[in-house]
């Protein structure tokens, strides 16, 4: 069918607006990337737009030499990997029994768990509990309060409930115990859902900010978000780059270093973004259908 005049206008405007929307998401990142590899004079004068001026990697070498960014990068990796493993384990431990119709007190327990979504003790009482457990300044304060996200647990529970019951019956007849059924049949068959939930948790731990800010005092234990935030915020960035020599400090553009810090956080995300997009979109759909 041939497009009418009005339709042609509609499509032109539509494509234009969507192109603008897409570019608005891309260009700020390109700008920061360009600034992170531009020479200091160009950065300070604001001459960098989308293409690096006097390309140099000095911002990155300064950043890695002068600050604890590498250390905090490793801390972020530790926080994320251990956090995801613990949270996945606990979410399965919660979702599996609750998906069983014969489980004692299944309804009241589910209600008690969903209630924590609607009402919570809030910042200060939670802090006091963590404090009294002696978790301040340890990663336990980040991992333990985030062991089970109710939302993720509900997605997993629904997924387990929708598994064909014949499968479990067949496994039982073949003499499969509870543990081996979970490990050998249920979990391998739930891999796409587990991947989605692992990524939900992973992004949460990688981007963890408030909890680290509140519970971790030791600067050696800061993760990337808190470290980069301090760098962006510091009035005298130079003071945070304590290990550099004076002649190095003279040729630093603070904005260049800040941009490099932001890029160190963005690059790992862009690398895993194809997976993120694939599974997150699926996860958001599950949420949409349920909700």
């Amino acid at each position, binding site marked *: 069918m041939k497009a009418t005049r009005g339709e042609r206008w509609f499509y032109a405007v539509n*494509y234009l607006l*969507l192109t603008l929307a897409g570019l608005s998401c891309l260009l700020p990142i390109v700008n920061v990337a360009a600034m992170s590899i531009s020479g200091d004079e160009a950065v300070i*004068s604001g001459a960098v737009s989308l293409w690096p001026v006097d390309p140099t990697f000095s911002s990155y070498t300064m950043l890695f030499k002068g600050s604890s960014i590498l250390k905090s990068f490793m801390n972020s990796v530790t926080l994320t990997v251990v956090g995801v493993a613990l949270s996945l384990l606990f979410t399965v*431990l919660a979702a599996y029994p609750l998906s069983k119709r014969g489980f004692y007190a299944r309804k009241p327990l589910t209600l008690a768990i969903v209630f924590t979504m609607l009402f*919570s*003790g809030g910042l200060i*009482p939670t802090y006091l509990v963590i404090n009294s457990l002696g978790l301040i300044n340890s990663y336990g304060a980040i991992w333990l309060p985030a062991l089970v996200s109710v939302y993720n647990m509900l997605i997993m529970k629904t997924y387990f409930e929708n598994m064909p019951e*014949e499968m479990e019956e067949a496994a039982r007849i073949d003499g499969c115990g509870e543990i081996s059924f979970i490990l050998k049949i249920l979990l391998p068959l739930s891999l796409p859902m587990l991947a989605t939930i692992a990524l939900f948790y992973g992004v949460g731990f990688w*981007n963890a900010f408030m909890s680290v800010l509140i519970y971790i005092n030791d600067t050696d234990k800061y993760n990337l978000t808190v470290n980069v935030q301090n760098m962006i915020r510091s009035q005298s960035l130079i003071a945070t780059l304590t290990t550099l020599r004076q002649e190095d400090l003279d040729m630093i553009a603070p904005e260049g270093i*800040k941009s490099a810090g932001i890029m160190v956080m963005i690059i790992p995300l862009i690398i895993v973004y194809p997976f993120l997009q694939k599974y997150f979109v699926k996860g958001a759909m599950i949420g949409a259908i349920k909700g």
Partner: protein
Amino acid sequence: MRGTTIRQSIRTHNQLGRSTSPSSRLRRLKMNIPWLIMFTPVALFFIIFKYAPMAGLVIAFKNYTVYEGVWGSQWVGLDNFRMLFRDPSAISTIRNTLTLSLLSMFVSFPFPIMLAIFLNEVRKLWFKKTVQTLVYLPHFLSWVIVSGMVITLFSQESGIVNHLLEKLTGATYPFLYKEGSWITVFVASGIWKSAGFAAIIYLASLTTIDPSLYEAACMDGAGKMRQIWHITLPGIRPTIVLMLILNMGHVLEVGFDQVFTLQNSAVAAVSEVISTYMYRVGLQGFQFGLTTAMGLFESVVAFILVVLTNMIARKFNQGLW
């Protein structure tokens, strides 16, 4: 046939608990043992990290001191609340929270809907995929990154925005240090970060609209805009209502990360919200009783709003429970 019998036998198997014969009760107990063992650590988690803090809310009615602890501290009744609602800075904090959250909510609400409708009208698949890939990306960036980019872009000396502005008008503008423009940047950065991903839900809902409706409208000579107005929008109305309701529960909530990473002392009068107030006055100023009262106020209002909106939603047959 065989499938049905097995399904029936499983159904009886699963309903064993409801029958009362001693042997089936014993079997149910046996089935439950591994489940109870699995669930114990989870129950401990919820008791320690979710319900114990709820019990800790009692310090909102106490004069909390570190030495006396949660249970030993003196009861003071509603003194903390009285102090809170007489304190002008606490009142302005609540007002700021309402302003920022309502503005964010209503200004940003139409963006995902428009984005989804536009994407739905795209014929070229590669174009649609590319735009989707780009607009979903900001969702995964932490607020530290987003605010860091905002601060870099709008910086008065080296930011590209002010650089362009200077070329055009000859003057720069301190976007992040004036209250009005700070609020605008705050709301816009929220839209930038979340609109793309929020569009997914509407896109999913758009696929449920019967395509024959569009064909019929086309036959009747309806243009694209009329089709969107009379078919697309009514088709996703349930989703729109649902999202509106879900948003209502967050009226007293402005995410800590976004405000904390964007705020600066020049705009403190409009940027101090409940979450940053609790952090600064509570955790850094050790006013535990007072800020817990603020937290309790926030939690109770949020809870009432969720329950109320769900009641309204039920009227439209869209209740969440």
